[in-house]
Every structure is written in structure tokens, then in C-alpha cells.
């Protein structure tokens, strides 16, 4: 089997086995539908109400993407002085660690109150905060750990700080940022869903988090599972898109070699 076929086939087989076993176990033990749905039922619900999940999924995806990008940009702005000054690094690090170790579910309601119930702002704040931390640590490491000989080479022609940043530090940080991006994709989706979940009752924006919350309140297990699966599919697609982008931008990097 060639490498290309293996790369396509292996994940398909993995997913088929996972859902197949799930289906088999639910059928074999006759598990009640309100306890655990069969994958076949979930897929059928999902395709039966495509427009509902598509429109809500798009809302969540947009929110997560906005938070992901904002988190990345804020992390780069904060990481740059941290990478250049140990003092700034030691000053910022405790704050970043506090953000990292505090579960988002604990402060999500407080953020919604802080943002006076605005779902859009609450979601943006939450997704930005959760994406920010992995990007921050990755950016500090990537911006700082450049080859000293290359740094000296650029200094030997009196390259300015911004030029060293643009030509050396930022490209060097890219592999680190992509690695953090894979973590931040999932976290930004969690942030978006929790923001929607804790949003006030008059949330008219929708989103899969809001849909899951309403399905849960109504004990609507098929909708609950279908929305969850839609969320998983969105997350998977986001990671896949990130992988494609990584393959293009990091084609020079050893991680992209067969």
C-alpha cells in the first residue's frame, strides 16, 4: 500500500471501527435511546435537519475562528517582549499560568456577567482567553530559541530588531505556533460552546452550544447527540484545514517530511 493510500485509509478505518463498535454495543445490550443513541440514529438526525445544524454550526465556527485568531495575535504581541526580556517573561508568566490552570467552566459565567450578558462579547473573550495561553507559551519559545550563529550573522550586517524579528524570529516560531494551534482549535471550540451555553436566555445568535443547552433542557437526546457530532465534525475539519496550511507553510520543516 502506498503512503498516500495509507494516509487516507487509516483514519477512515479507525473511524469506521469506532462507530461500528458503538453501534454494535448499543444494539447488543439494547441500550435505551434516551440513555445512549446509536450512531446510525445520530447520523440520520444530523442529515434530516441539515440546515439547523449547518446554520448553528456556522455561528459556532465563526466565533471559535475569531477567538482563535484574536488569541494568536494577542499572544504574539505579549510574547514578543517576553522573548526579548527575562524580566517581562517572569512578570507575565504567573498571570499566564493562572489563566491556564483555572478551568474555563469556572469563570465563564463571570465573563458573561462582566460583558453584561452580550453573547458576542462573552464568546469572544472566552475563546480568546483559552486560545491565548497555548499560543503564548509556544510563541515565547519559538521567538527566543533562534540559532545564535544566525542571530550573530544578521547582527554582523547591523540588521535592526524589527528586521531580525521578521526575517528570523517569526518564521522560526511558526512550527511552534502550529503545534499550539492544534491545541487551540479544540480550546476555542470549547470557549465558543461555553459562551453560548452561559449566554442569557435572550440569545438569538444561536450556535451549537445554545442548541445543546436547549436540547438538554428538553431531554431531546437525538438533537443533543446530533449537535455534539456536528461540533466534533467542525473540530475535525478545523484541524484538517490547519494541517493543510501547515503543510504549505512549513514544507521546509522536518515535521513535514515523509
Amino acid at each position, binding site marked *: 500500500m502506498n503512503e498516500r493510500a495509507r494516509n487516507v485509509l487509516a483514519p477512515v478505518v479507525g473511524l469506521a471501527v469506532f462507530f461500528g463498535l458503538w453501534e454494535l454495543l448499543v444494539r447488543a445490550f439494547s441500550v435505551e435511546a434516551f440513555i445512549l443513541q446509536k450512531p446510525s440514529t445520530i447520523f440520520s438526525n444530523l442529515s434530516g435537519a441539515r440546515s439547523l445544524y449547518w446554520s448553528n454550526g456556522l455561528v459556532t465556527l465563526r466565533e471559535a475562528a475569531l477567538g482563535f485568531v484574536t488569541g494568536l495575535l494577542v499572544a504574539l504581541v505579549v510574547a514578543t517582549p517576553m522573548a526579548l526580556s527575562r524580566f517581562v517573561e517572569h512578570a507575565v508568566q504567573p498571570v499566564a499560568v493562572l489563566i491556564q490552570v483555572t478551568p474555563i467552566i469556572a469563570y465563564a459565567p463571570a465573563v458573561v456577567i462582566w460583558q453584561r450578558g452580550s453573547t458576542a462579547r462573552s464568546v469572544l473573550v472566552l475563546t480568546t482567553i483559552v486560545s491565548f495561553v497555548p499560543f503564548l507559551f509556544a510563541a515565547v519559545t519559538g521567538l527566543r530559541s533562534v540559532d545564535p*550563529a*544566525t542571530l*550573530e550573522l544578521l*547582527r554582523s*550586517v*547591523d*540588521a535592526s530588531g524589527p528586521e531580525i524579528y521578521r526575517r528570523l524570529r517569526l518564521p522560526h516560531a511558526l512550527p511552534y505556533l502550529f503545534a499550539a494551534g492544534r491545541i487551540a482549535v479544540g480550546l476555542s471550540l470549547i470557549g465558543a460552546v461555553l459562551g453560548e451555553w452561559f449566554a442569557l436566555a435572550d440569545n438569538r445568535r444561536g450556535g451549537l452550544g445554545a442548541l445543546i443547552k436547549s436540547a438538554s433542557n428538553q431531554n431531546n437526546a437525538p438533537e443533543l447527540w446530533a449537535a455534539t457530532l456536528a461540533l466534533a465534525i467542525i473540530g475535525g475539519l478545523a484541524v484538517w484545514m490547519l494541517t493543510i496550511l501547515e503543510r504549505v507553510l512549513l514544507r*521546509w*520543516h522536518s515535521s513535514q517530511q515523509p
Partner: protein
Amino acid sequence: MIELRAVGHRFGAVTALAELDLHVAPGELLSVIGPSGCGKSTLLRIIGGLTTPSQGQVVVNGATADTARATKQFGLVPQTPALLPWKTVRQNAALLTQVNRGVERRPVASDAAVDAMLAEVGLVEFLDAYPRQLSGGMQQRVALVRAFALGAPILLMDEPFAALDEIVRSEMRYLLLRLWQQHAATVVFVTHSIPEAVMLSDRVAVMAARPGRIVSIETIDLARPRHPDMEDSTQFLVHVATIRRLLAAAATPAPVRS
């Protein structure tokens, strides 16, 4: 022309370089040889304006080392090739001409000229290759072209061939001589290898450690152009033996000054 007047350097309480004077004539190839830790690289950095000496003065073509660095008068070739892994061979070779562009006030190699130089050193088939696709010797050839493409009147080389095997190292030696003769640059070449120093140089400065100091400067009167056959000549072997003797004598600790 490079002139060091009473230059010395300390790292805290440690004297890295004792007071020394050195004159390098325009177009001269001077090698600096000595044991590890004797301050060869520090001396090179001081000449290149990358380290400010604790005492004394460095004059480069009538200006300070800092001014010379700010006008891109130095082409640095570090111990490792220091290529940017995300740039192709031709992009790496042209790098120094693009950084801090315009301050050199002299023509630097055009893209076509850089390609021609790369072809001359046998890399015509690798112009669009990435550094990871090259051998160590090929990478170091790119580093040499990068320095010569800058058109800098002074080249500072810090053990550039140290990591190469003996066969490639010998090839690189003659490649350097060819490029040097074409570009008529002044070269300060730091090395550990006595045959390399003798084969390349007009003069060899022998250094001793603790504190770092120049103990002798040996003039090499081998005819130019130099070729591999000369390595078997009596004249060459005498120079090698002389420098070996000087290095052995320099290994004995310096007399303590009252």
C-alpha cells in the same frame, strides 16, 4: 585595512584577551590559530564590531568597527552554516544583500550574480533546494557564497570548516582561495588546523591561552595561486612544523607579571 591598537577584553574577572596590537593589510588573508578558549573568536567578534573591547581601539578602513559594521563592511562566515531552513539555497545566498539594504553604498551581487556564484561552487542543481536537502559541505558552500555576494571588503571566518570531514574540508580550502582571489577581500580566518592555516594564509597569528594573546606572527611565503600539490612541498612542511612548535611553546603558561 584593519588595525587593532592595545585591544584587550575581559569577561568579568577573567582576562579573555591581553593587550594586543594587530595590523591586517588590505587584501591580506590572515589566519588566527590557537588552542580552544584562547580568545580567537572573541578577537574576531571585536574586529567585526559584535563585541566592544574592554580596552583599546579597532580601526577598520579609517572608521570604528561599529561604523564598519553599520555600513556592511564585514561578511561573516560562522562555524555553522547558519542557513535559514525556510529559505531556499538562492534565497539564503542573497540574504545578506537584502538585510539592511542600501547602507553599504557599493554594488552588491544581483540575483543573477548570486546564481552564477552558486553555479561556480557546484550548486546549480540545488538553487531551489532547502538547506535540509544539502550535505554539510554544500551548506558551507552556500555560506561562503552568502559572504562573498555581499561584496564586503572584509571577511571574518570563524572556523567555517571545522565540522567537515577532511576530504570536504580540503576542497573547501581551495574553493575559498579561488573565491578570495576573484573578490580581493581582506580575510581574517580563525582555525584549529595548522595545514589549513598555512595553505590559506599570507600570515598566521599564533595565539596562546590564559590570557589570550598573540605570541607570534608567521609569514607564509608559499607562492600563489596555491594548489594541493604544495602540501607535499618542503616549504609547506617547514611552515607547518614551525607553527606546531610555536603552538607547543605557547601552551606553557604565561609568566606572571608583578
